[in-house]
Structure formats: C-alpha cells, structure tokens
C-alpha cells in the first residue's frame, strides 16, 4: 500500500465519522441559533407581497439567462428562489413541525452488473419554514463481464432558515467517497479513489422593493477539499471561495421591464497534481442586462451577457489539442497553467400571435476568446450566430407551419509558439421545413412535411482537406383514418435524399447521392375489448449513386438495397388478470450492385446478398393478486443469409431468449409505512452473439423502504 493509499484509507474512516457527527450536530446547532433569533421575529417579512408575476418572471429569467461557458466553471448562480421552496407548513404549537426518517435498501442486477445500495434520508421541518435535510448513502457495484468493482459513500446535509431570519440563510455540506477498482486483460490493475468534501453557507435577500426597483441580493462562502488518485497520479485540491450576486429590475412601462444582474466570484487555495504542488486561484465575473416585454400580441426579450474569468492552476502538460502527453520522454508532466476567457452573448426573442397566426423569431450571437499561457493550444476564438424563424397559421380545416433555421459559426486557433493563426473553420447550416395538416373528411387526416437542410464545412486557407457539404431533402406524407368500429388505417410514404460531398480531391472519391423510398401501409383493428390485431407492412429501397464512379480510377460501384418487412401483432386479454402479446416479424432484404447501363439508359444490377429473418415473440403477464404480477416472455429467431459470388455461401443462424419473473409492489401501514418493490427476472438466451455471461443471468430491481 502506498502512502497515498494509507492516507486515503485513514481519511475514509475519519471523514465518515466526522461527517456523520456533523450530520447530527449541524442541524441542531443551527436549530438552536435559528430558534433564538426566531423569538424576535414572529412574522414572515420576506416583503415579496404584491410583486407582479411578469416582473418576477423577468428577474428569474435574468438570473437563469444563458450563462456562457466562460462562467460555467467558476460561476454558480445561487438559486435564491429555491431556498424556501418545499418548506413544511408552519405550526405555532412548537419548534418542530415534523421529523421523518426514511431508510431504504435495495439491489439491482442486470446482464452487466450487480448493484447493492442503501440510504438513509432524514427530514426535519421547523417553525417558520425552516428545514434540515440529511442523506446518507452507500452503494457497491460488481461488474459481471469485467474485473471491476465500484464502491461509493456519500453524505449530504442541507439546512435553511426559511422565514426565521430577515434574510434566507442556507448551509449545506457534502461528502462523496468512491473507490473504483479495475483490472485489464493483461492483469494490470488500477484503483481510482476520490474523497471529496464541500461546504457552503449562502445568504440571500430576495425581492427587496426600493422605489421602482425590485432587487435580490445574495452572497456565499464555500470550501472544497479533494483527495484523489487515479493511474497512480495524485490529484488533490483544497480551495475556498466567496461570491456575490445582485439582480435588479424595474418596470418602465406597462408590460415592459428592464432587468440586470451582476455576479462575481473569487477562489483560492492549493492544488497537487502528481508530485507537484502549487497555489491555485480563479476570479470570474459576469454582467447581464435585458429588456422584457409582454404587450398584448407580442412577447419577447433582448438580453446581453458578458462574462470572463482567469484561472491559475496546476495542470497536465497538454498538446495543441488538449491531449495529455505523459508518455513522451523528456516532456515536463505538470505545468502551472494560467487560463483566461472572455465571452459575450446577445439574444433576441419575439413571439407575435393573433388568432391562429403565430410568428416566432429567435436570434443570437455568442463570441468567446480563450487563452492558455502554457498549453500548446495557445489562443482559441469562436463565434456562433443562430437565427430561428417560424410561422404557423390556420385556416378552416388546414394548418400550416414554415420554419427556417440559419446557423453560422467559426473557430480559430493560434498555437502557443506560432506566429500565424491556423485559419478559421467555418460551418454554415441552413434548414427549411414546411408542414401542412388537413382534416380531409370525417375522421381522416393528412399530414405533408417537406424539409431541406444543407451543412457546409470550410477550412480557411485549406488548412485541412475536410471541406464538405451535406444536403438532406425529405418529403413525407401520412394519411390516417379512424372508423367508428375501432378500425384505424395508416398509410405513410417517405422519400429522403442525402448527398455527402467532400470538396477536396483527396476525399471526393466516396462522394455519393443516396435516395431512399419507403411505403408503409398498416392497420390496427380492435376486434373486441379482449382482442386487438395490427399489421404493418414496410418496403424500403435505397439507391446509392457514387458521383465519380464513372472515372476509371474510382473503385466505387452504384448499388441498391431493398427490404420488405411485415409485422403482425395480436394483444389478447382473456380476463382482467391475464394479458398475452403475440408478434411475428418477417423481413426479407436484397443487396445489389450495378453492373451495366443499357442503350436506353436503364441500369442492370446483380444481387450480392439475400437475407431472410423471421422472428416470433410471445409475452405473458398474469396478475395473481393486487400488487403481485407474474410475467414471462420468449422469442425465437431464424436468420438465413445467401452471399452470392462466384459460389453462393448460405449461413443460417438461430437465436432465442426466455425470461420468467415476477413483480411485487406492497405497502404496509399508513402512519409509518413499510414499502416493498421488487421486480425479479431470470434470463436464459442462446445464439451466436450470446456469451457465457449473457446466456444465464438474473435481472432484479428490489428495494425495501420504511418511513418513521
């Protein structure tokens, strides 16, 4: 055992005890403090009465506005409105209003792994909406198909004061421990361990009215501590953080609100990676402003957010693509990185609605710049523009929708030691869709959909040969009729054309147009309340034409692939307890390659493959008593394949599976209920793809829960 292992082992035990003690003491300490303060504050004084719904929604929108990835790592906006959510009803008869413990233990098993778990949840509700929650959990996974086990332990504590204090105070703590042991095929073992603890105390004062402004203020302090080891590399950190958040808004006219937010966070501590240790820090801030309107027929918003961060941390030595290079001899393994990022996002959204006319528009632009001081990746720049336009309108029995999507983005990179930029990679997307829906006549409807989309990739200055276009066009028609006698008929037709086209000569030999057609008639017939029959037939055919197949240097041949599929299914319910499902699926497919074109332009093909697949399924379910169901299912499959060449090779494969099981769901008692839920199935299977571990196994999901 290495010193790191010994250290983690010691921490496992001590951490578990410390956290468990904290779990009991923290809510109690906070309770005492909270109740003392509560003596002086007998009434709720959140001061949020009378605020209008649209105003609050605008501010909430602002808080949840699309945060740029720049702030994602270091910027966690406190959800100030959730702190009092779910609070228990207040009682004036005592300090505690409810105390609930819920232990639960269970097991899950499937073809890949067995999982055992246990958890204890404690909820304590107090006067003034104050609540304390605690969750202790443990799980153990044992993998059946590989030498791998994973054990996890966790503890979560959460306490909030509700309305006991003039501001909402929330304290939370978390402990996660895991040990993941794996052995690869050559017997090389790895143990990945992680021991993570965090604690946060946050204070927020929501919806303070000052003149025309409605303001929410929040602040938080936190600490994160991790000890981890993977592939014999230590990855530890111990960091403390402080952040503050201000949201404010004002209604400037009827249905028009201006809202803004400011957020800043600072973090500092130490990080260890491998054998190196160094101080770490991160500073981030973001600012957003938005105008929100809701004026009779038009609803929308314009918002702009700017965010940035700088982070100093110990990192692996990475190449220009961010890959970790620890194998090359003589290369420094760990470096002290300084990463900065600036980002701006602008968004406009509008919806205009009159009667059955609905027009929607959404436009956005995101720009960001990310710079690494040490990593060979150097400087990265990105921009993304997006426009979605949609219009729908109805007239009589018809309704129509037209949508257009335009996307344009690029990214560029200047490697660490380079004097020139790499060149931009552009991606442009355009997409149109038209849908027409019509009630043709009684109980008969028609849907027609047409869509076309083009995606184009271009490398500036041809820094690579990957320029390409993909054009997709599809048309579908669906017709359906319901007869009163429980008979429904569907008819579907689809055509889809795809063009995959590489622009550069080194890649264009595989350029092709693929056209696929599908016809799918079917019906569902409810013959009686206990018998339903349905049949669906589908015929697909796809033609592939290689653009340059006529050139002598291009070794590609045009081809077609055809498949017919008849699916018949029957649902029988002889009694309210018994249900049977019977299904038969018949598939036949051909592959053929073009051999010649005759003088009239007609093509001749030779068949390469004929495949026939037949599969029968049977499933039975029987309810023995309330909450107890016996179930079982089986299938048998025959797959015959003729590969046609100079000689024909025939292969026939059989496969099948059967499982039997039961499902139990029971609850005893009402005041302190004991609940049992169990689904247990035994599987046996055979076939060419079925391995030893998949041929005979149990599937289970069973748990027992008690509430007191």
């Amino acid at each position: 055992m290495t010193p790191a292992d010994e250290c983690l082992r010691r921490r496992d035990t001590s951490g578990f005890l410390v956290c468990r003690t904290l779990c009991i003491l923290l809510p109690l300490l906070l309770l005492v403090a909270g109740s003392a303060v509560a003596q002086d504050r007998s009434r709720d004084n959140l001061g949020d009465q009378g605020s209008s719904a649209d105003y609050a929604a605008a501010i909430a929108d602002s808080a949840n506005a699309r945060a740029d990835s720049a702030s994602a790592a270091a910027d966690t906006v406190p959800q100030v409105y959730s702190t009092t959510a779910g609070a228990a009803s207040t009682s004036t008869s005592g300090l505690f209003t409810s105390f609930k413990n819920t232990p639960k233990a269970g097991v899950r098993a499937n073809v890949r792994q067995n999982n055992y778990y246990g958890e204890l949840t404690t909820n304590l509700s107090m006067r003034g909406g104050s609540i304390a929650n605690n969750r202790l959990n443990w799980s153990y996974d044992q993998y059946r198909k590989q030498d791998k086990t994973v054990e996890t332990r966790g503890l979560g504590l959460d306490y909030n004061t509700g309305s006991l204090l003039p501001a909402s105070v929330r304290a939370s703590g978390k402990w996660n421990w895991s040990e993941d042991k794996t052995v690869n095929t050559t017997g090389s073992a790895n143990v990945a361990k992680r021991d993570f603890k965090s604690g946060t105390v946050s204070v927020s004062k929501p919806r303070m009215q000052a003149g025309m402004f409605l303001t929410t203020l929040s602040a938080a302090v936190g600490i994160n501590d991790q000890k981890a080891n993977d592939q014999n590399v230590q990855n530890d950190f111990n960091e403390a953080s402080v952040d503050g958040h201000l949201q404010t808004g004002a209604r400037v006219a009827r249905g028009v609100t201006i809202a803004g937010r400011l957020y800043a966070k600072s973090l500092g501590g130490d990080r260890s990676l491998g054998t190196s240790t160094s101080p770490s820090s991160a500073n981030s801030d973001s600012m957003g402003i938005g105008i929100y309107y809701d004026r009779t027929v038009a609803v929308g918003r314009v918002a702009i957010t700017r965010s940035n961060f700088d982070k100093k941390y110990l990192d692996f030595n990475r190449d220009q693509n961010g890959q970790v290079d620890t194998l090359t001899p003589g290369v420094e393994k760990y470096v002290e990185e300084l990463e900065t990022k600036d980002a701006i996002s602008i968004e406009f959204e509008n919806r205009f609605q009159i009667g059955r006319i609905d027009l929607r528009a959404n436009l956005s632009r995101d720009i960001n710049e990310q710079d690494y001081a040490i990593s060979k990746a150097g400087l990265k720049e990105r921009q993304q523009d997006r426009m979605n336009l949609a219009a729908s309108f109805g007239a009589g029995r018809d309704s129509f929708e037209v949508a257009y999507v335009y996307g344009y983005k690029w990214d560029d990179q200047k490697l660490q030691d380079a004097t020139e930029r790499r060149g931009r990679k552009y991606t442009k997307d355009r997409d149109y869709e038209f849908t027409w829906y019509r009630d043709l006549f009684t109980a008969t409807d028609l849907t027609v959909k047409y869509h076309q989309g083009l995606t184009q990739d271009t490398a500036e200055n041809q820094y690579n040969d990957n320029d390409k276009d993909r054009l997709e066009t599809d048309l579908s028609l669906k017709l359906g009729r319901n007869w009163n006698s429980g008979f429904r008929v569907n008819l579907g037709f689809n055509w889809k054309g795809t063009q995959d086209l590489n622009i550069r000569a080194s890649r264009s030999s595989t350029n092709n147009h693929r056209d696929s057609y599908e016809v799918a008639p079917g019906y569902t017939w409810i013959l009686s309340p206990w018998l339903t029959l349905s049949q669906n037939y589908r015929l697909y055919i796809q033609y592939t034409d290689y653009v340059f197949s006529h050139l002598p240097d291009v070794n590609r041949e045009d081809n077609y692939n055809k498949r017919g599929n008849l699916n018949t299914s029957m649902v029988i319910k002889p009694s309210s307890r018994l249900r049977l499902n019977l299904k038969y699926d018949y598939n036949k497919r051909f592959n053929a390659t073009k051999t010649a074109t005759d003088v009239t332009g007609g093509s001749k093909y030779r068949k390469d493959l004929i495949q026939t697949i037949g599969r029968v399924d049977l499933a039975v379910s029987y309810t023995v008593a309330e909450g107890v169901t016996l179930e079982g299912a089986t299938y048998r499959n025959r797959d015959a394949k003729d590969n046609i060449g100079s000689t024909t090779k025939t292969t026939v494969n059989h496969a099948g599976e059967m499982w039997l099981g039961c499902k139990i769901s029971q609850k005893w008692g009402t005041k302190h209920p004991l609940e049992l839920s169990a689904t247990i199935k035994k599987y046996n299977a055979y076939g060419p793809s079925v391995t030893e571990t998949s041929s005979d196994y149990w599937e289970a999901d069973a748990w027992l829960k008690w509430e007191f």
Partner: protein
Amino acid sequence: MSLDRGIRMPTVAVMVTLCLGMVLVSGCFLSPREQESPSSGEQIDYVNDNSAVNVWTNLEISLNNTHAPGWETRISDDFQYTPDSQALNMPGLPPGYWENWNKERESAFINNLYDNVVGIISLMRDPDFVVPDESGGVAEWEGVIYDLTVDSGGSVIRYRASADISFRLEGNFWYVYRWIDLIGESDPETGQTLSSMGVLRGTFGSN
C-alpha cells in the same frame, strides 16, 4: 378572434401557394458546392455495410483516412456511448458531460478530431478477437480491443482499450448503436496502461 372566421378557401390557396413558393425558392438556394475530381492514388475504399464486421472495418478506414462522413454514416440515430472509468473521471470536464452522448455529439467529436490532427493509424480489432456471427439483425461484440495512434503534429499519442460494441441492422444497413468502453489496455511494447477513446472523446468533444 374574428380574423380566422374571415379566412376562406381563396385565402387558403394563397397561403399554400406562398408556402410552396417559399419552399421552392429556398430549395433553389440550397445547392451544394462544386467538388474537385478525385486525385488518383488517393482513394478511400469502404466496404459494403451489409455486416457488422464490415461496419467496424469501415470505422477503421474512416480513422486511417480522417474521413468524417465514413464515421458518421455508420453511427445509428439511437447511438449511445458509455465511457470507461478513466474517461469518466477526467479532470476539467463539466458536470453531466457524459450524459446523453448521442449521434450528434459523436459526429461533433469525430469532426473535431479529424479537423485537428495530422494523421491516425488504427487497428480497430485485435487479431485474436473472434467475431461472433450476427443473428436476427443484432450483433454483440464483447471485449474487442482497438488500438489507434494519433499524430497531432507536435505529439504522437497512442490509445488502446477494450470495449463492448453492439451493432444493429436498421433498414438496409448495419450500424453501431452502442459503444461501451471497458478499460484502457496495456501497451504491448512498454506495458504502460494506455487510455481509451473515451479520453479522446473527452478531449475533442469538449473543444
């Protein structure tokens, strides 16, 4: 509102004409660019996707030629990816990074990888792996070991790992619809434990 009561068939006809007009006009805008004629000696020869083993071979061809369409078109619309422990615990990834790793994210990853590397040499199946037969439109490969070396220009990094791969016959062709990375395997020459493509997905998928 009284507006829709006033709309009658002539209005519908105008609306349909307008919509179809917009579609037709838009259709005219959406035409792909001219392509260069393929240069001799630089052919990418994929095999027909009529079996699971061919699809896996085609992924190898795609990697060796850094040809993104060759990867994307063999990934099922229902694609799911599960990382191994090392990828799961990669430092610096945002919370929830591995959730919902679907075809869209797989496409973004492979394009990003191919756009930023100089070359890749791959062997997607170790010679000792026995390919199981398909049956009923499904093929399950357990413990296949893949091996690839990525040349980024400034560094050359090797990835080698075992994975469980599920293939499915959808319509007329086979696709990869589930990829579970199990564990990084050892470098046969040095014995050093290498990383999986999960680590590569973590690096390039987040760029």
